[in-house]
């Protein structure tokens, strides 16, 4: 069974203070010990695996060499037969049988070694799985411990402010007020920007002689007076 069940029991039981054990300390020790054991076993297995693998490679090389000898003697036996030297062919055939027997022995040894190498590899994978699984279990415990640590300071504050009712409502109100202020400031900023760009546009229009009356000063007044006196 996973550690989560133990965590739930501990938390239900009120182990919510920092320093209070989340789960039985023994369970944590066992998980840690299993991880260390698995790591040791993997270390040893890897060492013996190196030796076994070297033997396996050596045997394979010897088998290959014997097989090539068999091939070579076989062609020699055929040549002897073709030359009508039956006695020599028999001698070569006996030699071939010896080599084949040796190759078969080494082949069996090689198969046994390969099986052992596979077994050790699968054992290593199994141990690695144990390490990962126990690591995840320990991580759950650590997570709850850290959660307790992070929550405890605020819990103390909650307790201190319990006398004051509507703590959350009041805090929310302050947050909303601050956000409203911020929004007002943003709106004001946008208005200012709008004003500034509006002025700029008016100036550009005036420069281009568009919109507002561009004639000004004494000359325009004189012009107006001339028109009036002419009437």
């Amino acid at each position: 069974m996973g550690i989560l069940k133990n965590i739930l029991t501990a938390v239900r039981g009120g182990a919510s203070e920092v320093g209070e054990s989340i789960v039985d300390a023994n369970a944590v020790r066992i998980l840690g010990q299993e991880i260390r054991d698995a790591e040791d076993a993997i270390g040893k297995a890897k060492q013996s695996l190196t030796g076994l693998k070297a033997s396996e490679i050596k045997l394979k090389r010897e088998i290959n060499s014997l097989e090539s000898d068999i091939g070579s003697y076989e062609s020699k036996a055929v040549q002897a037969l073709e030359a009508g030297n039956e006695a020599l062919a028999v001698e070569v055939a006996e030699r071939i049988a010896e080599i084949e027997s040796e190759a078969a022995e080494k082949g069996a040894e090689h198969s046994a070694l390969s099986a052992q190498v596979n077994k050790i590899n699968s054992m290593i994978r199994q141990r690695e799985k144990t390490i990962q699984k126990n690591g995840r279990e320990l991580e759950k415990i650590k997570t709850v411990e850290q959660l307790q640590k992070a929550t405890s300071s605020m819990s103390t504050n909650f307790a201190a402010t319990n006398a004051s009712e509507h703590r959350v409502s009041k805090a929310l109100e302050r947050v909303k007020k601050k956000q409203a202020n911020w929004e007002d400031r943003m709106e004001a900023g946008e208005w200012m920007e709008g004003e500034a760009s509006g002025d700029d546009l008016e100036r550009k229009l005036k420069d281009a002689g568009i919109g507002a009356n561009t004639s000004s000063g004494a000359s325009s007044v004189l012009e107006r007076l001339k028109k009036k006196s002419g009437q």
Partner: protein
Amino acid sequence: MSLNELAFKLNAHLTAEDTRFDAVLAESGVLEVICSNNEEFPINIVKTDTQLLAITPLFNVNEVKPDKVNELNEELLLISPAIPLSSIGRQGDSYILFGAMALDTLFENIVHELEVQAENTVDVLQVIEPLLL
């Protein structure tokens, strides 16, 4: 990144949404962060071997109207999936809003997570406020 380093970077950072952070590493090893978009509910950051946990304690169970605890629990379960990046839980007697990040999370993503968590806190509390004392 250590919590100390994170505190240093947070204190010097201003987000695109104009949020500032006030981060202090407490003696307990908890990094206390106040986001300017919600200064009333600080976020506490802690670290395990594999993750960064950002926790906002919301309220104590004794701040809930005694006959509304079940209703509150149900409402929190119902709204939890809709809250971006954060989850709701209970630690001892405290209700918490929390987010978890991998240790190699980029600083920009941590900042985003914190900013969103501060907003989520206000959203959640507004929903369940009628059930609190």
